[in-house]
């Protein structure tokens, strides 16, 4: 596994269902990033469908992210508070994607 995290993706377009993020300087709210990891099983079209469905990404953006996962091994698909990230990871797991979360340093 690559020990240094990739730079986070630019903030994704707001999907209708997501609350807006508050920014604070409190340590507990250090932004977290959500990563999706490449695996040899999930179909590319399936990954695109899931990213569109869960995050409201356009087909273009979701395809870009999927290609990043496929070619670089992983991609940042979302960021936010720890609670936000855990909810996103849980939803990605429901769809069988291999997702993890970590602090965005």
């Amino acid at each position, binding site marked *: 596994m690559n020990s240094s995290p990739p730079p986070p993706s630019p903030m994704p377009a707001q999907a209708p269902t997501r609350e807006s993020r508050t920014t604070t300087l409190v340590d507990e709210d250090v932004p977290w990033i959500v990563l999706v990891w490449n695996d040899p099983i999930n179909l*590319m079209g399936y990954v695109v469908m899931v990213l569109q469905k869960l995050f409201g990404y356009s087909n273009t953006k979701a395809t870009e992210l999927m290609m990043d996962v496929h070619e670089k091994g992983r991609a940042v698909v979302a960021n936010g508070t720890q609670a936000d990230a855990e909810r996103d990871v*849980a939803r990605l797991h429901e769809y069988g994607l291999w*997702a993890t979360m970590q602090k965005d340093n």
Partner: protein
Amino acid sequence: MSFSLRRRIRRTGKGVSIKIEEEERKLLGHLIPQLRDVLVGVGPTGDVDDGMRRLFPTAHPDDVENEAEFQGSHRDRLLAVRLDRLELVEATLSAELLTDAEHGAWITTVNDLRLVLGTRLDVGEEDDHDTVNPDDAASAAAATYHYLGHLLSELIEVVQHDEPDDPRFAPGLD
């Protein structure tokens, strides 16, 4: 399988029409109880099922405490969600029309089957449709795995075709 210009699984005014063969429905009927067994942990004792691990992955790979909390909060619900979807597919195995919820359950359950089978077969990125020897259990499993990929593509195409005038939703990504 006969060649047809019309997709076997497609949205109609009455729901998602699914015209797959009887043998396919039978196959799914055999696979679903096996998936249920994996999910509820029935199987060879002492074995940690790789398929199970794949269905319930780590969220915090480098943080034991946070990981324990995460699994405590989410694992039971994830199991329940999978079992509910499984039930929905089982109940609609003979159906020719699916609601959106049922169609969604078919997509994720077929994918769950692929995850378990693919993990057991230890498939790689470049795995191809190798020659199938009908007497070879491993080949049969591989053939089933590839069939499920094909079925999943057909199920997903419905979603991709939901915006027929949107050029972004052109099929063929796979």
